């Protein structure tokens, strides 16, 4: 599946979080700072990104991304 736009990406990621956290998520959100972030949530996010975009994120990618927009850019660069 080709990498779609940033808005769709944010919808995809926010849908993986609890409803009360979804409202807080936008392109500037660092998902690592969310209350629900955990090893389980990392696994779910990585798997979903792999499934949708055929890109497997690693530890460095998460360290380097301080916002969802930055994570989106990393996925784009790895997917191209």
């Amino acid at each position: 599946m080709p990498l779609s736009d940033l808005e769709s990406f944010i919808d995809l990621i926010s849908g993986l979080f609890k409803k009360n956290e979804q409202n807080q998520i936008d392109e500037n959100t660092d998902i690592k700072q969310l209350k629900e972030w955990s090893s389980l949530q990392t696994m779910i996010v990585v798997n979903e990104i792999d499934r949708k975009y055929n890109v497997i994120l690693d530890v460095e990618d998460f360290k380097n991304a301080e916002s969802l927009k930055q994570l989106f850019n990393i996925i784009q660069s790895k997917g191209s």
Partner: protein
Amino acid sequence: MAYFSISNIQINGIAAAVPKNSVSNFSLEDFEKDELNKLIDTIGIENRRVSVHNQCASDLCIEAANKLIIDLGWNKNEIDCLFFVTQTPDFHLPGTALNIQHRLGLSKSCAAFDINQGCAGYVYGLSLIASFMSSSGLKKGLLLVGDTITKLVSPLDKSLLPVFSDCGTATAISFNSEASKMYFNITSEGESFESIIVPDSGFKNQVSEESFNYCEIAPGIQRQGIHLAMKGLEVLNFSLKKVAPHIDGLLQNFELNKNSLDYFVLHQANKLILESIGAKLNVPLNKLPSSLKEFGNTSCATIPLTIVTYAKINSNIIDSKLVLSGFGVGLSLGSAVVEFNNIICSDLIEI
């Protein structure tokens, strides 16, 4: 790539033994209800079997072996070799396989070997016993594969406690000049040895007073140096990137048609990883048996345990062509294609 095939060896039967002590993941403390439901839904593990204090992998494997020997009608004196795969031996020294030879009542002429392997251990062990028997002409052998890995998991580790479970298995192997070939792909990724490790478990970092200090790795994850440590994201990356190409490489190397294979019995790491690899292989769920729900991740025992439990649901598996693939600690990968010809799958033992 270590691709190889082995002739003249067949699998006659498989048995598995689990501890009676069943622990429900729904009863885990320190989780909010929503969080726990999401966890169980994602990893697919509702119950786990946890060995009691001094119940070891050897005990479980011996029970499985005794049951299998009876079910097959084998004579113990005819068993020429045994291979014991575990990461939770009775002792560091001596090896456990020798004592198992004695405890099982096998002949002193039986050759006994220990193999230190985890998640890929069933395929590693199968490749070793099969090649040993094929080249030597020995007639009957036992592959015992099991772990009591729960003994290594920190009780304060929310990431690993809900996953791991204990089991011991026995697989009966014999020489048969008419057996179908077994095909293997065994590979090593030793640069990632720290991805899954018990840091203070040997002589590189000898156990000291500091080994018993709890360190907070992340919220909800506290471990001592003597506990199993896992870099979850690294292991997930490895599983998603490497396993499907490893299996496809095996099939391509030996020009085996994926559609001719009846089942893909993969290491039961967790449901998310299992089903993601299945999707990458384009394998439907009805060809991807799982024992996760009731038995969790039993380390090296997941593949034979899954075969034994699935055989009670769908007996077609006892007469089928299968891919077996284990992956994990090491890091290591082992994939195989084997053919079952009406093998015996003993009833599951609970002790």
